[in-house]
């Protein structure tokens, strides 16, 4: 069965710092990969997704992620964070040939200091 690990539980950065959040998954077959963001008190919104093609995926709000198949990784990056990026970030995986499940990591709480 597929699973997702997010290494950083809580990250604190100053504004304008660069961000990289780690995500590893554990399924060897074809995968769809996602990053979601949950702002305080709100629902989950999709930041970006990968399903095929260019392994470097660009999403909304200046975020990008790189799929590295050999490392089973899908790390999220942003070159310069803003205070408004303070939120919980979730990596998720779906194995389309296996089942309908979309499995989420435990999330990373990002706190940006103004």
């Amino acid at each position, binding site marked *: 069965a597929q699973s997702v690990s997010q290494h950083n539980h809580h990250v604190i950065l100053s504004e304008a710092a660069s961000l990289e959040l780690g995500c590893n998954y554990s399924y060897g077959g074809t995968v769809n990969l996602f990053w979601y963001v949950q702002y305080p008190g709100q629902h*989950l919104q999709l930041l970006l997704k990968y399903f095929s093609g260019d392994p470097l995926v660009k999403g909304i709000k200046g975020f990008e992620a790189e799929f590295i198949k050999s490392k089973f990784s899908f790390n999220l990056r942003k070159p310069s964070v803003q205070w408004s990026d303070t939120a919980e970030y979730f990596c998720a995986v779906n194995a389309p040939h296996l089942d309908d499940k979309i499995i989420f990591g435990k999330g990373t709480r990002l706190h940006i200091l103004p």
Partner: protein
Amino acid sequence: DTAVSQTPKYLVTQMGNDKSIKCEQNLGHDTMYWYKQDSKKFLKIMFSYNNKELIINETVPNRFSPKSPDKAHLNLHINSLELGDSAVYFCASSQVGRAREAFFGQGTRLTVV
């Protein structure tokens, strides 16, 4: 126009009661889910329905019973509520295809007292 809508947004109830949460999606998706988010923000899948048929039933107590009257609706009924059921419950929908991204509802914050 809200894509995935849940009601109610907040639900406070006593232990032992029975309650329902409703979910509707207007995206024409064929799959709907219920997720539970605990106080540590961990998101755990509970159920998945595809075209009104139960596909995934994770290890959830049988006090939780999903019901899908049609493809656009997936309701969650909870019997004999317990303190540990307090959480935020999210409904989501997705479509079979190359990239099965999920669209989430606003969540229902359930508090059992």
